[in-house]
């Protein structure tokens, strides 16, 4: 029992080195610090032996003795390799998806910059000679306005968007603009306006200037070969800037905008109205703002989830519970895409390091890329097997491998079908602002699937095959849906769609289902039906208009439309019933599916204070010494702080220092009595014992140990020191776990 606990702690920390490249991951875990010792070399052995073999795997790695360490080592190596491979795949996908989301806005910003630059230039063309001088360029106030792009990031948390602004800077630089990225750190009241000008000059001139001012910048700009491009200043976070400094900066720039064509881009995390409360009115007058929308977090999230969890090969997948946990964490705490991706990465690391057959996944992924059949996978398995050890190879019998390969192929096919159904549902729910992650959570729910399908999957298919081909359009779904569920919401939406929307929805379905001919055909059929109905309607209408019976025809139209909508909806139900099998209901899904919510939660949330308390109360479990195994009895051999924390549990929120000290002392001075009675003794017996026992420890030593214990508890945040009002009491801060 104890070993597993230690091993569990060691798993995430073993995954840690690989994720070291990302800076953000380092500061994740207060938890790791507490358990650093667990990842020690000597501690590793038990953890290795513990790795569970998947129940569906045909051959259990029955290793023993010396084989163990060498074979396992290569295993681990292979697993980590497979993880790195898989994760780099996922990472590049994410990068691509995010870039494609932003690219539209970037283009819009660039064309706006070109436009505003030409406007600035028309004002300035007459007085080029003035640029070199200190006199203000004399122009009317309208042309002195500063073109400002407000980029709405629409997320209170800035973290995701730092990267976006950096990319925006690179994008504009690649188009020949002079770009400087200013962070809000430069707009602090302490440095005043000098701080931002210094940073500006440092970025443009690449040297530090003694007395930074705008004259220097204008002189630099005029020396540039390409001084027919604008200077872009990107300020990434409006909210964090000091308002007065930013206003001063804007006023300063507006004095110079005729000489140096500066265009501002300001990132706004909340609403553009905040500008009014942060920047002074006079500076506000100088701005000529335009706003641009970046993709919202929800949109990004959808795109990432779609790309990774739906469209990518099932090299790695998450179970229902994990998905729900990740969603809740995102909605309640994270708020940033980066935190979601980090959670995904942690899950990925843990899966690859825990799952016995995870090294095979690499073969699985490669196979997908090269498009061949089972050949590569088979080869990969054999390769890995040969890597393990020669004797191992013999044990690996042909039949089992074949079976495994077949199972994996089946898994892949089913998962692909599932993802297509989910995509179709998502497309339907899109106009209702349905979030893909919500839908995914529901679609992954194995209970929902179980309630839907009483029999096994094979029975189901046989049944549908027997039925007529057009059955799917009149299909009465037998499963009960949650009333507020997202799937039912999507289906309801299909029923209510207008004609043009339905047509476009069908087109999107057609695109998604292109690979599965049987569904594809049905979608086409639906499209035909819709078009035919339209055609008929038009014909009918023209006839009926002649008869001046417009009213009736309208209701007719509505009814007919409804019919196609109903068909589409029941087709969706048919799809759900037939194809949407959550990955957890597929045999041997354990190889690709990460299920351990607890581990992920531990790694993500940490809950360090609880951990500290548990460790203090059960210190013997961690120290695993032989002397103090007794439960609920405080022994003098226990750790001081642990004794103190256990004994203070009896107090309320105020602890009398004297009482506490007395009970602490008692534990040391009369260890025998503890065995018979508990902590609370009658004063009479205490006195007797006090006399009996020889004074091994002097009062001074106990006092000093007591003081150290109190300090340690205070440092860990479980206690608060006494106030001046009540000098003999300390206050407990943490209650319960």
């Amino acid at each position, binding site marked *: 029992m104890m070993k597993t606990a230690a091993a569990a702690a060691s798993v995430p920390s073993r995954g840690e080195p690989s994720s070291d490249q990302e800076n953000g991951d380092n500061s994740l875990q207060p938890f790791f610090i507490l358990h650093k010792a667990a990842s020690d070399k000597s501690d590793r052995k038990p953890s290795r032996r513990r790795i569970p073999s998947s129940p569906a795997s045909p051959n259990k790695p029955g290793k023993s003795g010396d084989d163990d360490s060498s074979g396992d080592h290569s295993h681990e190596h292979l697993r980590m390799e497979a993880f790195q491979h898989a994760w780099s795949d996922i990472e590049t996908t994410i990068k691509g998806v995010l870039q494609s989301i932003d690219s539209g806005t970037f283009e819009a910003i660039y064309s706006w910059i070109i436009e505003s630059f030409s406007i600035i230039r028309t004002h300035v063309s007459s007085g*080029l000679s003035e640029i070199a001088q200190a006199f203000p360029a004399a122009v009317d106030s309208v042309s002195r306005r500063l073109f400002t792009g407000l980029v709405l990031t629409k997320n*209170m948390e800035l973290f995701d968007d730092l990267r976006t602004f950096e990319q925006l800077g690179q994008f504009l630089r690649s188009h020949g603009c002079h770009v400087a990225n200013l962070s809000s750190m430069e707009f602090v009241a302490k440095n005043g306006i000098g701080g931002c000008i210094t940073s500006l000059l440092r970025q443009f001139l690449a040297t530090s200037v003694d007395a930074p001012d705008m004259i220097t910048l204008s002189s630099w700009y005029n020396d540039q070969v390409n001084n027919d491009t604008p200077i872009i200043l990107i300020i990434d976070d409006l909210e964090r800037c000091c308002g007065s400094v930013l206003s001063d900066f804007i006023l300063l720039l507006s004095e110079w905008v005729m000489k140096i064509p500066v265009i501002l881009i300001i990132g706004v995390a909340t609403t553009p109205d905040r500008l009014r409360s942060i920047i002074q009115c006079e500076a506000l007058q100088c701005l000529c703002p335009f706003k641009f929308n970046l993709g919202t977090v929800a949109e990004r999230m959808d795109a990432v989830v779609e790309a990774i969890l739906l469209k990518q090969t099932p090299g790695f997948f998450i179970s229902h519970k994990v998905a729900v946990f990740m969603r809740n964490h*995102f909605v309640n705490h994270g708020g940033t895409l980066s935190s979601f991706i980090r959670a995904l990465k942690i899950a990925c690391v843990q899966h690859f390091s825990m799952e016995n057959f995870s090294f095979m996944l690499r073969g699985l992924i490669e196979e997908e890329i090269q498009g061949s059949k089972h050949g590569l996978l088979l080869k990969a398995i054999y390769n890995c097997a040969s890597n393990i050890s020669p004797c191992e190879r013999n044990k690996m019998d042909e039949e089992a491998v074949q079976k495994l390969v077949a199972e994996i192929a089946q898994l892949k096919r089913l998962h692909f079908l599932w993802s297509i159904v989910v995509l179709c549902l998502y497309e339907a729910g899109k106009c209702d602002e349905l979030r893909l992650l919500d839908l995914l959570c529901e679609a992954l729910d194995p209970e929902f699937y179980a309630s839907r399908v009483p029999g096994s999957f094979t029975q189901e298919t046989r049944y549908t095959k027997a039925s007529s081909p057009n059955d799917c359009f009149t299909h009465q779904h037998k499963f009960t849906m949650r009333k507020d569920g997202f799937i039912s919401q999507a289906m309801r939406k299909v029923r209510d769609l207008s004609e043009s929307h339905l047509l476009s929805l069908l087109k999107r379905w057609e695109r998604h289902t292109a690979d599965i001919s049987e569904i594809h055909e049905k979608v086409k059929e639906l499209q035909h039906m819709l078009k035919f109905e339209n055609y008929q309607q038009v014909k009918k209408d023209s006839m009926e208009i002649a008869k001046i019976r417009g009213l009736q025809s309208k209701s007719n139209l509505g009814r007919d439309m409804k019919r196609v909508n109903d068909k589409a909806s029941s087709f969706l139900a048919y799809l759900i019933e037939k194809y949407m099998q959550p990955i957890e209901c597929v045999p041997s899904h354990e190889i690709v599916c990460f299920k351990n919510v607890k581990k992920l939660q531990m790694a993500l949330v940490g809950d360090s204070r609880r951990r500290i308390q548990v460790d203090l109360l059960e210190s013997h479990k961690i120290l695993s010494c032989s002397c103090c195994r007794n439960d609920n009895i405080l022994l003098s051999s226990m750790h001081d702080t642990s004794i103190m924390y256990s004994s203070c549990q009896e107090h309320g929120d105020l602890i009398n220092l004297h009482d506490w000290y007395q009970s602490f002392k008692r534990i040391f001075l009369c260890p025998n009595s503890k065995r018979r009675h508990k902590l609370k003794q009658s004063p009479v017996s205490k006195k007797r014992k006090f006399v009996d026992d020889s004074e091994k420890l002097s009062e001074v030593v106990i006092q000093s140990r007591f003081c150290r214990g109190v300090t340690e508890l205070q440092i860990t945040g479980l206690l608060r020191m006494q106030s001046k009002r009540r000098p003999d009491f300390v206050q407990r801060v943490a209650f319960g776990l």
Partner: protein
Amino acid sequence: MGEDEGPSVTRRTTRSSFATANSTKNDVVERTKSNNICSPSLNDLLYGGAPFDLDVLLANFPGRHPQIHELLQILGPSNTPMLPIFVYGGPSTGKTSIILQLFRHLNRPLVYSSCRTCYSPRILFESVLNQLSHHRKDATNGYSSVKRCEKPSDFVNFLREALVGLVKRLKENMGKSKSSKKRERSIDGHMVYLIFDKLELVRDWDKSSSILPLLFNLDSILNIPEVGLIFISSTPPDTFYSSMGYIEPVPIYFPNYSEDDLRQILVRNQAYPKLYSSFLDAVLRPFCRITRRLDILSAIFSSLFVEYCKPLNDLAIVPNEDLKRKLFSNLQPHISLFLNETFRVLSQSSSGAERTKERELRGSKRKIGMHEESDELDFHMSTSAKYLLISAFLASRNPATLDASLFDSRGGSDGRKKRRKPSETAKGQKEAEEEELLTKGPGSFPLERLLAIFQCITSVAEDFLGEEVQEEDSLEVEGQNGPLMSDVLLQLSSLCNANFIVKGGTCPLEGSTRYRSVVSEDLALKVAKSVKFPLAKYVYRR
């Protein structure tokens, strides 16, 4: 405030010395050469292009004739010493541009430095010295100034040196130009004028202990009769002088423009004066009631005029009464819109339109129109941040004594006891409290109180949600009992970063940090609505 340049801009001819060097893309070496060639060129100190007559100047600045005449009188004919001038008046009343144009008319050399651009004493000093010695910062000299000058005493010494040299050269130059009239534009007289613009900003520099007295005393310190000092400020002289024992400069006041002046200024330079004046008939009066600032008005009118012209095909027509009325009724809704707020955020220009359209189709509700007050929160916040924001708002709004009765189920009895007390005390005290709350704004609160309210709120909300969506429960994972409580401090810091909560000063008694919520009630209500929290129930109102 150099707005009213207008027609003279187009007539300005570029000067020979610098224009040739700058207009073409030449390398640094060539520029330095040309710099060397014309290094003694005193013409650098002249402002603008070719000089013009007084009539042109007066025509360019309608409504400013008395001020211009007064200035001319004080400056006097060439080579007469002058007393320092202090020009003041509200923003955008033409102070800077009139002075500059006046010097262009007079053809006298000046050194101009704006205290906004020169944001610290050192940069101000060095900028003045650089101009006096025709020094340009560029890559060849490492963007350094002609002299490093930080102390006021150094500045006075360097300045005297430079000025004496300059005046000497000016005198020589005068003799030369009299004998041979090579240059088309010759400097008139041997006076040099130092202009310090936006002087009001100097008051904020290191409490202005030394710089302001220095500047005002500069005339008597230098004691060079050939130097004239002009200060330009947007605040009256009373805000500067503090009986420091120097001669007060001659004040010249630029009053705000009258409505007629504004009309004259605005009609100038318009392509369609007839149409524009009929437009001004409609809009000038209501807007003048709000502001007389020319920069604001011209910005508003330029966009309003576009609206005004929309129904017209031919802009050159002279509108009759009927058409005027029609146009006015067209414009009416826009006027009220602009009257309410002068700051408007435009959305993406045409190029991005497709994308926004696409977005609109999907989002449907969110219109680009800026005055669409939607109930929805249009940015993302995590749920716990939302609750934290609400609890911070409550903590700031409600008095701390009320917390128990609002959030504690046992609090009812407590509240009754407390309610009895104020009934006995005088009513005036309550009113005074109310007033105090109004003037104080949102109250501050310690972290503990915030967390307590947060916990109460979230527990209430979870019950509330639990009743409403029972089905949702199966989606909850075990161990999620207090899902909102973890890393609250992280959320708090990001709320502080977003400027929703402000870290107030520490309380002198407790020594712990206090916070203050600065969100508007609208935003708080929006946030509460998005998490379906009945905020109105909890806000304490008298």
